[in-house]
């Protein structure tokens, strides 16, 4: 069985003021995630990405369908905290998810809630802070840190609970380019070195390219999924749903329209340069 299995879920935020039935935020959505995988969930605002993220750690329960995490049904209330321990969720705004006035005390918040022994918490906190390269800031006040640093502290706060999977809901949306690359390299390191399962929700194509598998969502459903190469070669489909492709792919697509032949679509600037060199030779 897969580590996370989302089986045909539908969900709507019910609004009691409205007489007419509200539109589903997610409908007939299925997804399965293997251990150690790096999956990106892509789509524009309001397509249901965040709703899916909150289903993965039992913050929301589906109206119909089931979500299983490591074999446990998320609707089983006895398992809620086990599931949240296994699947950590990092939110968009780093400022709003830090609870303590000192970095290391914030990172300790999760393990403290789990009732872990003080010595063990200390060890986990130090380890988590070292993993995200924030160890030297352990006694700083969070409000004095940059956005990227704050978001890395938030990630450390989840890591200290030693989850098996980390879900990030647009963690880079409020960050500057520097902060964004700091967070992305932390995630890649986690996935490659610690074999952590990562689910990244984003609307930056450049970030999705770095993952093993891209799932594109539109209007609460899966539009297409596959490796970044497979997904981003379907330029017409993505354009039809008002989604972008990475700039390099876009350039290649336009050049192809002018009659220049590419064997496959480039995803990053470096790849694109190499391919153009080949073509122009």
């Amino acid at each position, binding site marked *: 069985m897969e580590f996370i299995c989302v089986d045909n879920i539908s969900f709507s935020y019910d609004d009691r003021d409205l007489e007419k039935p509200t539109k589903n935020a997610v409908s007939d959505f299925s997804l399965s995630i293997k251990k150690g995988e790096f999956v990106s969930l892509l789509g524009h605002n309001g397509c249901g990405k965040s709703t899916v993220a909150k289903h993965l*750690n039992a*913050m929301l329960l589906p109206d119909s369908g089931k979500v299983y995490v490591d074999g446990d049904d998320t609707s089983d209330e006895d398992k809620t*905290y086990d599931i*949240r*321990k296994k699947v*950590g*969720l990092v*939110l968009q*705004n780093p*400022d*709003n*998810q*830090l*609870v*303590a*006035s*000192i970095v*290391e*005390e914030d990172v*300790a*918040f*999760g*393990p*403290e*809630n*789990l*009732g*872990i*022994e*003080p010595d063990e*918490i*200390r060890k986990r*906190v130090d380890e988590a802070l070292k993993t995200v390269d924030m160890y030297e800031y352990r*006694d700083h*006040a*969070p*409000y004095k840190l940059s956005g990227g640093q704050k978001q890395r502290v*938030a990630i450390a*706060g*989840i890591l200290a*609970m030693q989850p098996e999977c980390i879900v990030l809901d647009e963690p880079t949306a409020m960050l500057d380019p520097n902060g964004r690359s700091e967070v992305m390299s932390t995630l890649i390191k986690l996935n490659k070195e610690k074999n952590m399962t990562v689910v990244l929700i984003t609307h930056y194509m450049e970030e999705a390219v770095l993952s093993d598998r891209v799932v594109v969502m539109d209007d609460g459903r899966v539009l297409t999924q596959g490796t970044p190469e497979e997904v981003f070669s379907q330029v017409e489909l993505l354009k039809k749903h008002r989604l972008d492709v990475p700039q390099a792919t876009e350039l290649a697509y336009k050049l192809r329209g002018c009659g220049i032949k590419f064997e496959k679509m480039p995803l990053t600037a470096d790849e694109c340069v190499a391919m153009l060199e080949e073509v122009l030779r």
Partner: protein
Amino acid sequence: MVRDVAFGQFFPGKSLIHRLDPRAKLIMLVAFLVIIFCTFTYPSLLIVILFTVMFILLSGVPAKFYFKSLKVIIFIVIITSVLNMFYGTGTPLFEWGILKITLDGINRAIFVSIRIVCLILASSCLTFTTSPTDLTDAIERLMKPLGKIHFPVHEIAMMMSLALRFVPTLLEETDKITQAQKARGADMESGNIFHRVKAFIPILVPLFVSAFRRAYDLATAMECRCYRGGFGRTRMKVIHMSKRDVLSFAAMGLVICGVIICNILLPAVL
């Protein structure tokens, strides 16, 4: 920019006072505040002053920060001591119409002003040397017995530490909104007091809306990190009483005894 507030600020350090158990500090502060108001003779007042000077020196926090925290209340000190000066009884030393100054009045003024100054210095010493988290932790532990009568001790301590955590964030946000409203032509610097209060509304409304949004986000983040109230929660930093704390309690005891003995043996000035 986050504004500079001296009172309630924390200065990280390694001094003797910093290393005391926050619970011990809190208990001693309360005891000291009580004893300050039990001084009725000049020798006992002197003991209190000496003790205050001693822990200021021991705290290792530059004296200028203590003066800064006094600056805020200097007017209160002056007004109360002037008022007290005219309220004395006994034979007047000077007299202008209905105003008369007596020896008793002068004594009162001196006692009141020194008491207030020592009170502020002692409380500043606590906040200067104790991190907010330690302080709320200490309050939570000291109030634990109240939990038996279903008083929400953990919840209150958690609320306090979250409030302290968000002070700089919300101050920063207030500055941002103020600038945004100024950029849209809001006038906050001119007009009378009512005008200025009214000009503050366009800042308060967005601030409240965003504070609620933050609270919602924070609650989600806390739930994601398995928060479920104080039950079954452990702490990373375990605070425990050590020899240092016992010694400082002993010093405090000496001060209390000294003040009481002075009060009994010498005639009360007040």
